[in-house]
């Protein structure tokens, strides 16, 4: 293994090894709980990365799709009495289908208009879930019971870990596929991509549907882990969170979403001791990160590595 490969895969393999044995290295129940949530949210952030990081369309509706997935699963198992796994697959497909409908409307707009349209959609979903009592349970929320196999916390941890890895694999495949290159072409230069024969609207909608499918998956896992759903599962603040995770980690990078989600979510959980002041500190840190590290942690590390490697090469050359 060359040094280049070691750098590329070493960190990943080390992290994976730790992740595989995490429940058995003596961490507290609370900590494991936090990590499971971070894993679920990192799937949602990866889903946002497809549409925002790779395709360049800032969607503020990711929280809504998370909620649609979660409520879809709950309603399909509770009201329709479907098998859990069937319901989960169906919930993700429904989320993708809603994404298709919204995409058809929203992608007629661009830039700031698109941001506002998606944010409004998220708000509508939240209010509808809150008020559509007989279907969603309204503000009382509703319970959700998963399969017996995943009643234990450790089992749910491995389930989430599996889906995080699966999503990461999907992201990796997308970023190297022709479709993925199409997404990035749309992001980098829309008129040029259009001139090259890429169907812009079609590309955006495909990216959006994949993104919604995965957001729905995250919602299903969130519902399974919490065991209880309330309208806050579809709140637009959730969309803000996902965007913050993505930007802190690094939009348009493979590991950025996971790094960002774990960094921000864990930091906020650890800062719970200082009460609500943590949001004040977090707000200030957020402003500084966006101003001084606009490419996020992973993007920042990448350019730092390039600089170090570049100067080393220059020294060797001299």
């Amino acid at each position, binding site marked *: 293994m060359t040094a280049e490969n070691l750098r590329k895969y070493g960190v990943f393999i080390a992290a994976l090894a730790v992740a595989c044995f995490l429940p058995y290295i003596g961490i507290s129940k609370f900590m494991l709980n936090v990590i499971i949530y971070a894993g679920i949210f990192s799937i949602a952030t990866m889903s946002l990365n497809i549409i925002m990081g790779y395709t360049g369309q800032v969607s503020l509706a990711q929280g809504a799709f998370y909620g649609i997935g979660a409520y879809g699963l709950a309603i399909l198992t509770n009201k329709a009495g479907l098998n859990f796994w069937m319901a989960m697959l169906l919930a993700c497909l429904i989320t993708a289908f809603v994404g298709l409908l919204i995409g058809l409307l929203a992608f007629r707009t661009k830039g700031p208009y698109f941001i506002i349209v998606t944010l409004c959609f998220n708000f509508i979903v939240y209010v509808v879930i809150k008020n559509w009592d007989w279907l969603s349970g309204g503000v009382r929320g509703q319970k959700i019971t998963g399969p017996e196999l995943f009643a234990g916390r450790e089992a749910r941890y491995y389930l989430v870990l599996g889906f995080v890895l699966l999503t990461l694999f999907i992201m990796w495949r997308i970023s190297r596929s022709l479709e993925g290159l199409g997404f990035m072409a749309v992001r980098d230069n829309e008129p040029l991509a259009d001139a090259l024969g890429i169907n812009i609207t079609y590309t955006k909608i495909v990216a959006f549907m994949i993104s919604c499918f995965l957001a729905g998956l995250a919602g299903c896992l969130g519902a399974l882990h919490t065991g209880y759903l309330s309208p806050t599962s579809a709140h637009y603040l959730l969309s803000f969170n996902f965007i913050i995770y993505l930007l802190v980690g690094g939009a348009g990078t493979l590991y950025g979403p996971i790094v960002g989600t774990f960094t921000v979510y864990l930091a906020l959980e650890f800062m719970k001791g200082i009460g609500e002041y943590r949001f004040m500190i977090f707000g200030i840190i957020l402003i500084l990160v*966006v101003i001084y590290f*606009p490419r996020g942690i992973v993007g920042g590390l990448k350019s730092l590595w390039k600089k170090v490697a570049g100067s080393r090469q220059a020294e060797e050359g001299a």
Partner: protein
Amino acid sequence: MSYFFQQLVNGIMLGSVYSLVALGLTLIFGILGVAHFAHGHFYMLGAFLVFFLSVSFGVPYWAALVIAVAVFCLVGVGIEFVYRPVRDKSDINAFIVAIGMLLVIEEAVRAVWGTGNRRITNPYPQVLKFAGITLELQRLIVIGAAIVLIVLLHLFIKRTRMGSAIEAVAQDREGAALVGISVNRVSILTFSVATGLAAAAAALAAPLAFIAPDMANTLVLKAFVIIVLGGLGSIKGAILGGYLLGVMEALAIAYISPAYKDVWAFAALILILAIKPNGLFGGRD
């Protein structure tokens, strides 16, 4: 029929507040391209400043209003400096800075005044009765003062050099810079005027309802809806859009369902943008 007119007047009152907030936002977002999502929080902060002055210090209402507006014009200068490093970056960077800013403001207000609702004593609680409509005097003052402020802003932009500079930057930022207009100074001025307007709107409307740290959460969303509907950077669009949304909302609460009151506006926005992707009044790309 008098019920309808009653709701109409309520809607116009609501629309006055929306217009003032949206005006500031359209100047900032439409002209400078900064998605100032914390604008509503400065409205909330303005309400709390008036509360602080009038309740804790016993400053008369109108004096508190003037002080609040003056202070917030200065605060606007500060906001501009926070945004300056991200002003020419992509929309989302400024948006995240705004989220950071609103987290700080909301928690600061919670830390100082607690999470509960507060109330500013209504300075003009007299009730007017006219053709079957009952109206608190303060509501009439909100409507009247909003019109005065809108006319003043119009005169400022059309009749003064500084105002013309704002309009020049709005029309063509590079062109304005080429003829020697300092974009930074215009930017400071814009934030100052916009934040002052938000404080004025807050000071006017605050005595009519409770004030709380989370009072501005949907307000800023609505302001964004208004300016997008009106066309980004369009002052006329922001004013008309504000009144339109206010009236629409009041009528929807009265005749359709209060639970879904916020949904109509947002649903209408999605549909209108699907048909006219650049807003009702054209707007810029």
